[in-house]
């Protein structure tokens, strides 16, 4: 216990030091889009109106509390109604509300102007990560990736010092160009999530079976962070959103390399790999996708998370093993990885499981086997 406190100490000191920065964290962020600035102005306008109402109302109340006391000899008045007053405090607030509603309507209408986009990105929520897909007809809409929390477990469990972007960092940023209208199509694979980037002034629920539209024209390059804002299960607090806005040329260059490696990836679907190639790739994928439950050593946490080492599946028929990984096990934590991994990745991770941790199935799994299996269904 004492040790734990000692280990938290550096974190606490860092926190104090950043006190100045925290002072800026009292209010809504102004953000980096025209919309986010409009929203901020709207927020400040209503806020000041509310403060003004508060000052007047509480002013009268406290005046009365301090002056109209029995202990000061106050004698109760006998008035108890006034139609004029009632009308006044019905009409005046209504007028104030109308004054508030006008700018609010304007901003809302501007937000709903989703047309004329320069590019489309599909944002798909999963328990508990985001998938981003660049919708680009030229490349079969196939270039997509997952964005997972990158904060190590040791920081969350207080075993190491928490770094600056604790819980707000991911393994792969969503990259977008500045000064172009990017349209986001938000949806979900499982439960409802919500995609929010405060600096863009946009938030929308990711609802399974529904496509919600959002858009942003970011004006300043930078890295912008947000979080899932709809309770989506156990790791709701651990699926951040990180968007990197890049100067146009830089983005285009990045996108071109991504797309060409995507072409390479698609070609690799027809390749035949060696045992060693599959083992190397498979180990990496096992580490990212499987080891959190089945453990790095393949021992699992029986009975909840079965062991891979010596497992009947890993030593049994190859196609059964493949289809279990592709389709998942309904009603358990074992997901259908067919939706998240491509044929090369599936083949290599299954091959790895069959030949690691002392397993020795003695066969080989190729991307084509995965494709055949998927088509056969």
């Amino acid at each position, binding site marked *: 216990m004492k040790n734990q406190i000692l280990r938290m100490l550096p974190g606490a000191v860092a926190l104090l030091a950043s006190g100045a920065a925290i002072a800026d964290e009292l209010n809504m962020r102004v953000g980096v889009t025209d919309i986010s600035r409009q929203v901020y102005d709207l927020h400040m306008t209503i806020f000041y109106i509310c403060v003004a*109402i508060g000052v007047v109302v509480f002013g009268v109340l406290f005046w009365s509390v301090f002056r109209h006391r029995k202990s000061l000899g106050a004698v109760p008045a006998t008035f108890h*109604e006034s139609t004029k007053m009632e009308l006044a405090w019905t009409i005046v607030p209504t007028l104030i509300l109308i004054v508030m509603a006008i700018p609010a309507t304007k901003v809302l209408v501007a937000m709903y102007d989703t047309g004329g986009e320069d590019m489309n990105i599909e944002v798909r929520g999963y328990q508990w990560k985001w998938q981003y897909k660049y919708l680009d007809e030229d490349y079969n809409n196939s270039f997509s990736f997952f964005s997972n929390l990158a904060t190590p477990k040791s920081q969350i469990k207080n075993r190491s010092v928490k770094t600056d972007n604790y819980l707000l960092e991911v393994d792969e940023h969503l990259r977008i160009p500045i000064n172009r209208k990017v349209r986001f199509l938000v949806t979900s694979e499982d439960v409802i999530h919500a995609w929010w980037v405060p600096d863009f002034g946009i938030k929308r629920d990711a609802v399974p079976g529904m496509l919600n539209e959002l858009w942003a024209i970011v004006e300043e390059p930078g890295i912008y962070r947000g979080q899932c804002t709809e309770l989506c299960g156990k790791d709701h607090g651990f699926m951040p959103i990180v968007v990197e806005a890049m100067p146009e040329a830089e983005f285009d260059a990045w996108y071109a390399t991504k797309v060409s490696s995507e072409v390479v990836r698609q070609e690799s679907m027809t390749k035949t790999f060696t045992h060693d190639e599959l083992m190397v790739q498979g180990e990496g994928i096992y580490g990212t996708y499987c080891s959190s439950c089945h453990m790095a050593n393949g021992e699992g946490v029986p009975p909840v998370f079965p062991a891979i080492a010596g497992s009947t599946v890993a030593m049994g028929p190859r196609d059964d093993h493949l289809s279990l990984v592709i389709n998942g096990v309904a009603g358990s934590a074992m997901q259908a990885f067919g939706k998240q991994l491509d044929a090369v990745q599936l083949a290599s991770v299954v091959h790895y499981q069959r030949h690691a941790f002392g397993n020795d199935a003695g066969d080989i799994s190729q991307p084509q086997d995965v494709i055949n299996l998927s088509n056969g269904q």
Partner: protein
Amino acid sequence: MSEVIHADHHDDHAHGPAKGMLRWLYTTNHKDIGTLYLWFSFAMFLIGGVMALVIRTELFQPGLQFIEPEFFNQMTTNHGLIMVFGAIMPAFVGLANWLIPMQVGAPDMALPRMNNLSFWILPFAFSMMISTLFMEGGGPNFGWTFYAPLSTTYAPDSVTYFIFAVHLMGASSIMGSINIIATILNMRAPGMTLMKMPMFVWTWLITAYLLIAVMPVLAGAVTMMLFDIHFNTSFFNAAGGGDPVMFQHIFWFFGHPEVYIMILPAFGIVSHIIPTFARKQLFGYTSMVYAVASIAFLSFIVWAHHMFTVGMPLAGQLFFMYSTMLIAVPTGVKVFNWISTMWRGSMTFETPMLFAIAFVVLFTIGGLSGLMLAITPADYQYHDTYFVVAHFHYVLVPGALFSIIAAVYFWIPKWTGKMYDESLGKLHFWLSFIGVNVTFFPQHFSGLAGMPRRIPDYALQFADFNMISSIGAFIFGFSQVFFLYVLIKTIRSGAPAKGRSWEGAKGLEWTLPSPAPYHSFTYPPEVKNEEVHG
């Protein structure tokens, strides 16, 4: 009606409670049942409070220290459900039971046996719900709003128990409401016209109609969940052609009136306490009644303000923005009338009055943040952050809960015949007042800074505010245990109270001796003008 009942008891004046514990099981007396409701809600309040403290303990610092995220979600969910359905609502029903017959000049509630049943359902419903926490897979973990499909396809197995518990709570509320409406409409003493009814009676009459209107909607929602889970329907399952958003429309069609169900009786209570301690008649009685009625009406057409981010057409968004803003008007009317009641009164500040004034101030702060939340484009930034948490805790804790505490201090002399200790009461008030503000005020800031709600761990920039919130929560929690002590002390050894326990108290209940007789009015009292409004 009152004639008949009065004939029943005519020759049996000494009729008192039965002896022994079974009295509480079989009782059909409105005061006994009121007492049962109040103690039950207090027990639930403490259980829900412990859950809140578990949450605040975990959130004291960034990182996971004490509990796992899975359990954290069960705590937030059960805290919300227990406070809403187990603490606030039954407490108001308990107050209705105690007060309505006395305030309208009746001997008891109209339907005493049903009254017994509506109470005794509750302990079973809540035992069932709380027991799921100990089941394999855990209890409800999908938030008190239980959005599908998290609460259906992805729910723990125990969700079926949760559904039945909600059904039972709904049945209890509906029966309670029928009883309240029947009592108010049929059992008023001669001469008490509708527009002479005390405000607490008025607000409960309207609340009871709200309950009857929306509890069946909630029952429908959970029934559809039950079918989705067990009978392969797809009401809320997109893969089967259903619509998860429909769940939210149904839930909030119940849920928004529900939040007013938790505040209208509070309006009634405060409308009794402020005139009493200002020694001045309630200002604008008629417009107070109309304001409550219009709030109740508007509460049916604003539900989707909880769903601004769900993706509605522009016209829908605008409609719900305008209608929500409109609710602020009658709400404002109430606040202005209370302040006008205080204005040029002759005020003293006994504990009930302190809680009532704090109610007016802090509830108004909650109303103002509600107004901010109504502005759709800004709500995109606020929604599902701690700003919303701050908003609804301001209207529910120093709002609904403070009014209940104020009511207990105000009427406990009538109930027990004993006076509470004024300095202990004041101490309880100041501790609660400080606790509630230290807990919830900083949450406005963490929300604006971007902290989502319902997360067990958070980014470092939110650390300070969370620490302050947690400290406040422990102050508040402690002060409610202190409240328990004050209550027990009052019941055991409070000074004897007069029939009219407060100098400025008006209303039929104060014409009875303290403690009030077991059957409040065996003869219909005369309704004198100086005792009633209008």
